[in-house]
């Protein structure tokens, strides 16, 4: 085994890893996406406050469907133009786990907040509870993706 063979193999493996990391770096969503998601979350809370289960269920179904389609493009790209799709294996299972954990935390925080607001006699408890969660989405969505990217790079 010559040194040049080893050096060549080492450089090639480094080049391959470099491309993987570059693809991971492309996983992002533009700022407007998080603002839109936050607004939709608050809107969903407002619909829940109307007190019509059928309407709430329909709105929730629409919200989840649209979110699923858009979040599939968590790789929307920083400019909001989808020019590359990162492979699921590249992101790793931890990425999916992080997204699901954040979603469950948002739902939990909204439910607990709504119960507390209702207990305090707030007129629109779900809307009241969904506003701070919406703010967290708008301000924290970008950080969540940064965390997913960091974990994916280490995997």
């Amino acid at each position, binding site marked *: *085994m010559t040194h040049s*063979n*080893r050096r060549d*193999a*080492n450089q*090639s*493996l480094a*080049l*391959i890893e*470099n*491309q*993987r990391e*570059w*693809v*991971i770096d492309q996983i992002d969503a533009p700022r407007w996406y998080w603002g839109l998601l936050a607004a939709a979350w608050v809107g969903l809370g407002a619909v829940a406050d109307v007190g019509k289960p059928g309407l709430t269920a329909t709105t929730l179904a629409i919200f989840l469907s649209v979110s699923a389609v858009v979040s599939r493009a968590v790789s929307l790209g920083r400019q909001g133009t989808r*020019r*590359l*799709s*990162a*492979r699921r294996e*590249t992101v790793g299972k931890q990425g999916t786990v992080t997204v699901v954990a954040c979603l469950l935390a948002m739902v939990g925080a909204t439910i607990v907040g709504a119960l507390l607001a209702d207990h305090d006699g707030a007129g629109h408890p779900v809307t009241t509870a969904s506003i701070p969660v919406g703010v967290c989405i708008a301000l924290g969505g970008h950080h969540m993706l940064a965390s997913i990217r960091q974990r994916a790079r280490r995997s």
Partner: protein
Amino acid sequence: VTESDAAAALVTRRDRGIPDEPLFDELIHPSTRLTIVALLAASDWAEFAVIRDRLGLSDSALSKQLTTLEDADYLAIDRHTVAGRRRVKVRLTPIGRRAFRRHVSALQTIMLSADIGESVGP
């Protein structure tokens, strides 16, 4: 061995988690093509323009490299039009993905052999 037998064997190997055998691939190895294939291996697909900008190549130079890989059935090129704009998507085929895995495995084997050689000494 028929093509379907070979495909079935490949699926069985994957199910058992058996890694593909190392095979140094001269077609993939040159740095430009290796960059293209490595980028596509981490992606489901990428647009022609993304690869071109990443590599800093001209359209014609990239087309030449892509054609070489396409001729070997390593990648597929899908051309379509979105809102009046022509888009070209490039993706690795299962054959290309397997060739890449085997090439990576071969590179790792070279590194491992070199490490063992060094530890044993002359």
